[in-house]
């Protein structure tokens, strides 16, 4: 797969928002600083991935897992991230479980309906699918590959 250079950058709008939320109210951020932070973030991902991958390889695993990332954070001296990361992961896993159950329930409900209603709900589902693609389909993608 060909990678264009811009694909390895993170979206500027999101980076800017995160920066603004971290700084005290009213503080400005120069355009150059914003760009630099965005690049630093990409480098951080690479560094963290490489570090985490070392732990996975040491354990003779081909798949990078959560533990590897946590070990990488310690190795990189970002212990301050460990607790918030643990909490975020808990919330994320709960959310994923809820979503899975919800979509399974939807599927079960659909099976109960008649064909006429199926046409109607199929249209509705297409609408839902577009929204869910923001987040959910990414998850499904990962499962298939792993």
């Amino acid at each position, binding site marked *: 797969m060909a990678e264009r250079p811009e694909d390895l950058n993170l979206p500027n709008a999101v980076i800017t928002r995160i920066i603004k939320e*971290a700084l005290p109210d009213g503080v400005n951020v120069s355009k150059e600083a914003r760009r630099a932070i965005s690049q630093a973030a990409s480098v951080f991902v690479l560094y963290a991935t490489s570090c985490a991958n070392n732990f996975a390889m040491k354990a003779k695993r081909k798949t990078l897992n959560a533990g590897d990332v946590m070990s990488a954070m310690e190795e990189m001296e970002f212990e301050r991230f460990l607790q918030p990361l643990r909490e*975020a992961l808990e919330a994320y896993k709960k959310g*994923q479980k809820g979503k899975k159950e919800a979509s399974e329930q939807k599927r079960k409900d659909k099976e109960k309906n008649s064909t006429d209603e199926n046409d109607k709900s199929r249209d509705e589902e297409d609408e839902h699918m577009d929204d869910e693609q923001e987040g959910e389909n990414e998850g499904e993608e990962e499962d298939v590959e792993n």
Partner: protein
Amino acid sequence: MSAKNMEKVEQATNRKNISLPMSRVRLIMKSSPDVSCINQDALFLTTKATELFVQHLALSSYKNGSGKETNTLSYSDLANAAEESETFQFLTDILPKKILAREYLKSLEEMEKDADNL
């Protein structure tokens, strides 16, 4: 986007508790050599950690920098943080300190002089 759709997107974001797109983070991770598979939780953690990192870098650089007087976070604040802080050392290559052109030319001249003397 209708109100209902907005709510759905918000819910999805809140449940994940992150703003950066995991798909993009995954792209970057995959560009790393020797990486084959990435578990979903690992991808989430890396994305979240990157957000925490952005906050940490921005705030630390601002606190230590001269930005407090100008009320602006500037590039030099970041470059200084990379040089002075151990945790941000890995960024020194991409956040080099800027020097004045004349200083650079001066050091170039001195290098040429040394080369001549060899």
